[in-house]
């Protein structure tokens, strides 16, 4: 039974209006965006809002954009709310919550014509020249547009322009509300000013008809144990809801047939962390780096995991001096039989190239979680990119096997992280699990993970001997290329291993014949992995399996592709999507077959040079007919992808198609 309060308005009416637009949304959803200076709690408040929505039974998927800066530069979060799970954020928004002028400038253009812009009274008429953090390029563009429209170069001009498009602008008297709050709490205004974003959220929540109770529940969970903060914000919510009544309420309505089943609300880093814990990871060394750090921090804070029998068996998660130490320490730990990993991003991974080769040469089961961010060099530390694929594939001098997995959504981060250890131990070789920043910071509702599905395969471990301790062959030549693995400290045995070319005994050898055998042994393991790993673990096919129109992708673009696929299907366009999971050893035969039956074929990637497509050409001897790329540091959305796909399908598109959005 749905209580009256819990009927949310609007998306259905949006849908009606969207029908006339180019892009038809296949799923009812509402996009809410909040922006503001970094350090002002935007992210936390957006998570709180998302949690409140989720607790109402809705599905949410949230995007986070922020600068590589601690305080002051612009950041924003999107929360897309829907009854049926969406896989992707939206570039346009329905409700924009701001309390600084810069946010208004950056995002008012992204509002749908039926959307709402909430802004602070103080920001209603600010000259664009007075906003120091506004990028010069953006300021110039906005000013040009304003003067073309005969409007002043101010936020007022922008608001007017938006209104001309149909956007409803709502001015919020934050200072007055804060004063009221201070009064009620018997505090000075400055002491309550931190609640400003709570006010903003609450007003927008009220506007879309979210029950006050829902918001309060999320508030309490977010600030668990922080009584004072909860109390203050509680009052703020009350004031906000009160104020919202003066505005036109319930502007949007979502027909609610949400989830009652329990779900998790978490992001990519948390999902990976849980997967590692599930797999029994014993050791992770890391060096802080965006956007990888969050995973390790999450693990550090929760390392005391228990088994179902109650034994503590948490991993040791250690911040070390640099990435060289991180990867090599993890290798050292792996030699003892601990499931070991490290997590990093591009610059750190660059420093790991030598250590990766050592692990390859020594057949060490080692997991590396690689969170891609905008490169090259320091690049764009907090923006997304898929520019490390070919580097990951070739990192480290010389030729040695490695396995590369790419995760495409928040849920698979968990299962992939867990399985990475199996691959690593089974084939005794490093495994790189690749994510990208977009996925990392995607916060999403997902079904609770099925821990029972995590079965552990430790590969061939040498049996412990009952005899007098003795040296054993670490690199025995076997038909499969896999040598049963002794562990350092394993009772009854010791062994040698080395990054130098070696004999079966792990002793230096430069004999040409042995060299050939060892090269062949190592290469053979990769061939074995290619043969053994089932197709279902190599790639996923979505949509209409028999369709010719085929969209290939990897990583976080999966979400955009799947949502777009749904929308294509809504429009009666048959298509299928192929999401690559195992990038190395490359599933050449399967991809070749798919390419053969694809027409047109499209590759969707978040990078400049279409790296996966290069790999297709190299490995499957054929690339896609069309590329859809984005390399602005921002993720691809279904919204932007759909028209592109439509035009490709219609035969109107060229080979290389770049998605651009100047307002992200």
């Amino acid at each position, binding site marked *: 039974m749905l209580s009256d309060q819990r009927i949310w308005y609007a998306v259905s009416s949006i849908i009606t209006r969207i029908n006339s637009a180019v892009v038809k949304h296949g799923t009812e959803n509402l996009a809410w965006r909040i922006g503001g200076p970094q350090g002002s709690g935007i992210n936390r408040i957006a998570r709180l809002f998302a949690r409140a929505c989720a607790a109402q039974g809705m599905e949410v998927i949230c995007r986070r954009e922020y600068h590589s800066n601690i305080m002051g530069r612009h950041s924003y979060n999107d929360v897309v709310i829907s009854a049926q799970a969406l896989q992707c954020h939206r570039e346009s928004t329905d409700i924009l919550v701001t309390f600084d002028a810069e946010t208004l400038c950056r995002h008012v253009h992204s509002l749908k014509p039926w959307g709402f812009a909430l802004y602070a009274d103080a920001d209603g008429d600010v000259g664009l020249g007075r906003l120091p953090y506004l990028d010069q390029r953006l300021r110039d563009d906005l000013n040009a547009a304003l003067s073309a429209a005969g409007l002043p170069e101010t936020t007022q001009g922008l608001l007017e322009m938006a209104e001309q498009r149909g956007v409803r602008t709502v001015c919020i008297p934050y200072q007055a509300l804060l004063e009221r709050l201070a009064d009620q709490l018997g505090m000075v205004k400055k002491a309550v000013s931190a609640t400003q974003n709570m006010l903003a959220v609450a007003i927008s929540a009220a506007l879309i008809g979210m029950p006050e109770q829902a918001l309060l529940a999320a508030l309490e969970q977010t600030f668990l144990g922080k009584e004072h903060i909860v109390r203050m914000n509680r009052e703020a919510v009350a004031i906000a809801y009160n104020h919202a009544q003066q505005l036109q309420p319930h502007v949007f309505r979502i027909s609610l047939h949400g989830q009652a089943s329990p779900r998790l609300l978490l992001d990519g880093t948390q999902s990976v962390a849980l997967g590692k814990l599930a797999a029994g990871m014993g*050791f992770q060394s890391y060096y802080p780096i965006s956007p990888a750090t969050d995973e390790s921090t999450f693990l550090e804070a929760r390392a005391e995991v228990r088994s179902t029998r109650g034994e503590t068996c948490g*991993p040791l998660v250690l911040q*070390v001096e640099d990435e060289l130490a991180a990867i090599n320490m993890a290798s050292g730990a792996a030699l003892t039989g601990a499931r070991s990993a490290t997590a990093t991003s591009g610059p750190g991974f660059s420093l790991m190239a030598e250590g990766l080769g050592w692990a390859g040469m020594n057949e060490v089961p080692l997991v590396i979680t690689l969170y891609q961010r905008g490169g090259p060099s320091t690049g764009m530390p907090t923006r997304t990119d898929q520019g490390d694929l070919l580097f990951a594939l070739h990192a480290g001098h010389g030729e040695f096997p490695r396995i590369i997995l790419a995760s495409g959504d928040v849920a698979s981060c968990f299962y992939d992280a867990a399985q990475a250890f199996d691959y690593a131990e089974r084939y005794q070789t490093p495994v790189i699990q690749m994510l990208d920043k977009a996925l990392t910071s995607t916060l999403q509702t997902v079904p609770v993970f099925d821990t029972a599905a995590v079965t552990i395969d430790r590969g061939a471990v040498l049996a412990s001997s009952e005899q007098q*301790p003795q040296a054993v062959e670490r690199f025995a030549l076997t038909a499969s290329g896999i040598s049963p693995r002794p562990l350092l400290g394993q009772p009854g045995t*010791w062994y040698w291993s080395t990054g130098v070319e070696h004999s079966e005994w792990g002793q230096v050898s430069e004999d040409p014949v042995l060299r050939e055998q060892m090269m062949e042994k190592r290469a053979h393991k990769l061939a074995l992995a290619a043969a053994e790993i089932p197709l279902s673990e190599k790639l996923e096919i979505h949509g209409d399996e028999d369709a010719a129109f085929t969209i290939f992708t990897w990583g976080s673009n999966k979400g955009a592709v799947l949502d777009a696929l749904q929308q294509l299907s809504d429009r009666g366009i048959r298509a299928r999507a192929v999401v690559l999971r195992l990038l190395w050893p490359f599933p050449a035969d399967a991809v070749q077959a798919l390419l053969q039956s694809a027409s047109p074929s499209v590759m969707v990637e978040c990078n400049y040079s279409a790296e996966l497509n290069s790999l297709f050409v190299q490995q499957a001897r054929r690339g896609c007919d069309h590329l859809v790329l984005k390399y602005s540091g921002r993720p691809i959305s279904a919204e932007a992808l759909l028209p592109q796909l439509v035009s490709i399908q219609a035969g109107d598109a060229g080979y290389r198609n770049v998605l651009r959005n100047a307002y992200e």
Partner: protein
Amino acid sequence: MGDDTLKTTLSAKHYQADQINDWCAGCGDHGILRALEKAMAKLELARDQTAVFGGIGCSGKTPYYLNVGGVHTLHGRVLSFAAGAKLANPALNVIAIGGDGDGLSIGAGHFVNSGRRNLDLLYILFNNGVYGLTKGQAAPTLRIGEKTRSMPRCVIQQHMNPIALAVISGYTWVARGYAYDVPALTDLVVAAMQHRGIAFLEVLQPCPKYNDLHTKDWYGDRLYKLSDDGYQALIAAETDAASVQQIYNEALARAAQWGELVPTGLFLQDLSKPDFRSQLAGLQPGIARRPPCQCVVTDDSGRTQIDLEPLFETLRIAADSSQT
């Protein structure tokens, strides 16, 4: 159980691997290897519970020649590998070995940062003044103005002082041995292994092939034993700060000695600092009971037995109670 601990007597010979040794004749490395074998025998280290890690260089080949777990790692990275193994399996006896180029040049960052961790392992640095394996370039231990026969030009940088650096970096046991004085070196290795915390042992190691400055002859008269000099290296657990500073000063003053007199023996043993494992146990008691190498727990069908429920709990979206 094939554990070596069951074996009552292991002689130095038991620790000698049946492997051809390719160091130059007369190289100081041979003496160090002898001392290691002897010390292991004295300590009766279980061969299956001991691992020696080597950097890259002539020195780095040491693990091949010992009958215990042996890992030949990367240039400059030996301490990282060794620390990883020790952290994951604290029962292992761990020795890390590297050259002066390995440890003080390319590996200096790990050298310095490993001191901070005070992990219970021994790091032995072979100081031969040169890069042996790459044919005699200057190592950071060579002094300004010095030029060995292998170098086209003399050194124009200051040298690095490994003892002083170790002291400043937080190593809690710091000593210097001499490759050709095997008995004394053996004792130092034994003492180092008995120390709980990170031990640093510099070994003066003549390289007859490339270093014609610091030869057996050169060291001959110069070496003296700190203990013969009444030097006091020990800082007991509960020493006051002033006395601690006093001993550190003294250690650094002795570390600065070079030339007429070159001290050997123990410069510092600081028991006032907690070792890493005890610190870790304070933070995460579970680790003390179940080390990282034993974290995989499965049932008979191979399903993981890690209980994620408590974590799911914090991330779970509870269905709203008002909803049916």
